[in-house]
């Protein structure tokens, strides 16, 4: 894998992300990554709380109106995350915590899509569905908390910074 990492780290984009003195480069991308996290994890968490009994007066189907914001946050972070990865590929790809973070996000998003499908199906209030939804909500909260923690720990757990 090393030749690939060396090649990626010497690419113009990677050098811009890590080397540019512009505040829009590395610092700006990090700031966008934090905003995307707040939107995606924040709105997912609010939906989970609703499923666990908070703000029962809000019909579940109406929560679907916030879906574009959640996906907006997700894609913002997919793009800013890829840019950060191009900046420091060795740092992330040689750290198991990075793969754990990706796995937790993937599980959280799959759960979100499942929850959304159950809500759209209209049978979310049936006792069996309600129980499934509660279980999904708890798992989702755990995954997002884990993904956020794993992400923060990347700054402390890497073994190699560059190839």
């Amino acid at each position, binding site marked *: 894998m090393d030749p690939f990492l060396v090649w990626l780290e010497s690419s113009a984009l990677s050098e811009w992300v890590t080397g540019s003195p512009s505040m829009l480069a590395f610092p700006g991308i990090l700031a966008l990554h934090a905003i995307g996290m707040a939107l995606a994890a*924040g709105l*997912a968490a609010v939906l989970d709380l609703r499923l666990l009994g908070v*703000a029962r007066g*809000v019909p579940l189907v109406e*929560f679907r109106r916030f879906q574009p914001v959640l996906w907006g946050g997700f894609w913002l972070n997919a793009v800013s995350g890829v840019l950060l990865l191009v900046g420091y590929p060795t740092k992330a790809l040689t750290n198991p915590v990075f793969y754990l973070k990706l796995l937790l996000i993937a599980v959280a998003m799959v759960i979100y899509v499942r929850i959304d499908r159950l809500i759209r199906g209209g049978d979310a209030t049936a006792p069996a569905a309600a129980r499934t939804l509660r279980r999904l909500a708890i798992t989702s909260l755990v995954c997002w908390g884990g993904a956020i923690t794993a992400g*923060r720990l990347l700054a402390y757990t890497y073994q190699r910074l560059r190839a």
Partner: protein
Amino acid sequence: MLHAAQIWLVAAIESHSPVATLMQTAWAWPIVESLHFVGLCLLVGAIGSFDLRLLGVARRVPIASMHRLIPWGIAGFALNVSTGLLFVLTEPDQYIYNVSFHLKLLFLAIAGVNASLFYATSYRQVFGTAPRLDAPRRAKTIALVSLCAWMIVIVCGRMITFYRPGPCVGERGVLLTCEPD
């Protein structure tokens, strides 16, 4: 005078910080940072979605029902004040002389005053006996200011690490943004 206050504050915290020893253990700082991010998500999730509702998203939902989320946003805020204080009490100079931290506090204050304005001006129209589904114009402005202020707070918070204070040389501004000797 503001400079003297900053220097005094840093010295006061440094001479007597009850949490510094705890925060300097191997994993305390990263764990508290993670909690700070979790609190941020809770805050933006709850307060941001309420703001969006005021602005007209999911307009069939009664605003009062949506407002039930706000205590969770306040819980996120409380978590972040507590965890944030742990950082400041451990490395006071890194924050009290940091221009990005100054801006963060400014926009936190704006978000706070703005939120109080919402309750002062729009409470009756939104929560009264004949609540409106479409928020009054003023409430929409407040919601927009709230969203912008919180986003700026996040950006300033994330930028703190890029504006670490160096030793003071030459002219000093209204607030110290460098380490005095």
